[in-house]
């Protein structure tokens, strides 16, 4: 049970406070409700580029990192399709430095040309390092536009192409900041040995004067129901053939979410997952195979990816995988196996909250979904899923016409 207090400043900044007196470290997490789904199709990768620019100095503070390091703190950030998340940890008695830093970059940025020019290069190098210069690194860049034709989930957070980042202008940066980086579009969580009253006072002092900004109303195109199976075949300089299959699934807020997540666990959680036992160990068709959900807030993807053993034909591998999919659709899961994946989820949650920073991030995410207290009902939600619900969801997801398949083949 994660207990917390919550309040909202007049400018709309939502603040969540979790007290944990077992550690001298305090975590601050600030989530901005803007992700790559909010980008223009010609400027993809922009939300993430912007995340880099947030470290390029703010209106009153030329460097973000140094003052934090000077008080023993550390920080980082990430961007995904749905939101942008900034987080730091700091020894508790220097917490005010974190308020000073974060409020100043919410107040206004320095918009330094130097930082802008350099960070465009840095992000292009990141694009190369993590996507283009890695074996199988572009698979997601190919799979997304195959599965989505309309919704902005069709591009990855890094963007469609490095040229989008290279062509970005300073005016676009300012515009992006004004639209999204406002108190009313942010959630702040503080976790550690703190008192809510103290956090309230610090929040008012440092964030209270920031103008509210315009509330952002998201209005994204809806992805039409997929009506026929799609495939794409590419040949790349990689040692082994790989397959990536995706199916559209429900949104995070849908009742079917928990059953869907458990389906991915039944197929591939732990060593005893069905796909590993059958396709890796018994039939020896794949060297590795995984099933997972994309974890998006809006309707996301259920994904299965596997690398084939050298010499195995793609047709044989895919047919055997299909048998496993048919199995989970046709035959209700045994109580013991269902209990196994539920137990596993319960344990994973306990292990995922070992530090105050983990707890701060989780609280911010669930507050974005609508209510931070969701974090405390998750175990119950998973535990309530029935075998019948698993079957119903599986049948909904694993329809042939709902599937997009990427065949990622070795050149030679």
């Amino acid at each position, binding site marked *: 049970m994660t207990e917390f207090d919550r309040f909202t400043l007049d400018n709309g900044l939502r603040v969540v406070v979790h007290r944990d007196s077992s*550690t001298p470290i305090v975590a601050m997490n600030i989530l901005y409700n803007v992700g790559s789904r909010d980008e223009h199709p010609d400027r993809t990768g922009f939300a993430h580029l912007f995340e880099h620019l947030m470290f390029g100095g703010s209106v009153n503070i030329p460097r973000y990192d140094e003052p934090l390091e*000077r*008080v023993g703190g550390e920080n980082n950030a990430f961007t995904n399709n749905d939101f942008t998340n900034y987080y730091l940890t700091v020894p508790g008695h220097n917490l005010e430095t974190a308020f000073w830093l974060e409020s100043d970059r919410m107040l206004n940025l320095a918009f330094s040309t130097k930082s802008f020019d350099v960070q465009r290069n840095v992000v292009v190098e990141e694009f190369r390092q993590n996507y283009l210069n890695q074996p199988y690194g572009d698979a997601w860049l190919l799979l997304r536009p195959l599965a989505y034709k309309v919704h902005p989930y069709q591009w990855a957070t890094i963007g469609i192409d490095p040229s989008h980042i290279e062509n970005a202008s300073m005016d676009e940066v300012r515009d992006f900041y004004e639209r999204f980086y406002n108190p009313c579009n942010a959630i702040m969580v503080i976790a550690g040995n703190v008192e809510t009253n103290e956090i309230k006072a610090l929040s008012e002092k440092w964030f209270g004067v920031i103008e509210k900004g315009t509330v952002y109303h998201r209005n994204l195109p809806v992805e039409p129901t997929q009506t026929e199976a799609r495939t794409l075949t590419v040949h790349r300089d990689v040692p082994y053939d790989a397959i990536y299959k995706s199916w559209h699934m429900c949104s995070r807020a849908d009742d079917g979410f928990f059953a869907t997540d458990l389906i991915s666990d039944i197929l591939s959680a732990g060593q005893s997952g069905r796909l590993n036992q059958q396709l890796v160990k018994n039939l020896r068709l794949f060297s590795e195979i995984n099933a997972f959900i994309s974890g998006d807030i809006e309707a996301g993807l259920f994904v299965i990816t596997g690398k084939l053993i050298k010499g195995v034909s793609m047709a044989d591998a895919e047919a055997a995988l299909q048998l496993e999919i048919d199995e989970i659709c046709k035959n209700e899961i045994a109580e013991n196996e269902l209990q196994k994946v539920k137990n596993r989820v319960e344990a994973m949650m306990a292990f995922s909250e*070992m530090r105050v920073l983990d707890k701060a991030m989780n609280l911010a995410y669930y507050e974005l979904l609508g209510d931070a207290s969701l974090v405390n009902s998750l175990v119950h939600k998973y535990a309530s899923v029935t075998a019948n619900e698993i079957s119903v969801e599986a049948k909904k997801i694993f329809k042939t016409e709902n599937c997009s398949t990427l065949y990622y083949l070795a050149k030679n």
Partner: protein
Amino acid sequence: MTNLLNRKSQPAIQSLGRIQFPQPQISQLSNGIKVYQFNSGSQDVISIEMVFAAGSWFQKKPFSAMATNLMLREGTRNFSAQKLSETLDYFGAHFENTTERDNAYITLYSLNKHLNNTLPLLSEIVKNPVFPASEYDVIAGKQRQMLEVNRQKVNFLARTHFNSILFGSKHPYGINLEPNDIGRVNTADLVEFHKSQYHSGNCTIIVAGLIKPGLINDLETYFGGSDWSGNSISPIQYLLSGSDQKYNFHQKEGAMQSAIRIGGLMFSRSHPDFAGMKVLNAILGGYFGSRLMNNLREDKGYTYGIGSSVVPLRNGGFFVISGEVGAGVIKEALSEIKFELNRLCTEQVGESELSLVRSYLTGEMLRAVDGPFAQADLYSELIEDGLDISHFEQLTDTINHINAQQLQDLAIRYLNPDDLFTLVVGPEGI
């Protein structure tokens, strides 16, 4: 009130004070195994790590140390691999197997409430593995495919080739595993390696989490007996046979980025210069605000990330700078790295930068003892090297008191760019 707020100046900085390093509770099982317990945290979970002197240092054939560790869970006297994984997963627990140069680790992560079901499995895989050939085929095949994929990555190639350059490809710290090496190891090798390295005389246990009373009795029951004793073999001493060429290039055609390694041999944790080198390393490339990051990333945009580290090993150690840069700027990047190394040797670090690094490292130490699992990780390295808490106290003392002259002396002694080895993996060298 708004007018009174001074946003230009940093709020008053409070001194971080003295770090309270948590002391583990130390006990001993009847057969001599030492058990270190870190009892804290807010979640009702536990980790039990068993450390064996069973790293690649001790293997006769490349891959056999790692293969033995991976195969522990693939079938035992009383359980098939499938039954083991079914049971483990049912109770929401998991094992982590890691093989490093000196040690091998097998760690059980479990909810406390299921420990009576999961602890017996840990005992089973450590004491009674049977290494079935059919399971080994699957594991070895998978490892071989993973290795082939990794060998497409400039970063992986740079890491493995650089080890060979420093230590020599016959030295256990310098072995560069080839796919064919995997085919040369069979289950008889694993049985032999298990017998010689995985026994009570070669084992330390580190427990972390919210520890229930009586745990030590359970550990005694499962691991305290004389049923799995063995003789520790005295470690073999290997000769260094690193490269005599300072500049090395390994071609990877078509790569968009080149991986860089620059470094040299150093020393283990107990060396008197170890703590000072940690500070010097931080200044150069040990944190986000380091000189390498400032120069090559934040000023020039050559790289997504570049850093340096001091890596202590049981029998030696090394220093290395590592990063991936755009293939077109490899010459410029190498020249900037050399510039930063020279600057450390010729100029004293200023007081502002030094105090920044002192604070950063102190904060890092605080984070490193935050939570039971972090504490166990931190101490596990120390315990294996026969060191105790005083090592951290010395390290903290050096962080707070080393001066600019001492740092420059260290740079001249260890980081002269003409003495260091360079490796470039990419489409073109210089």
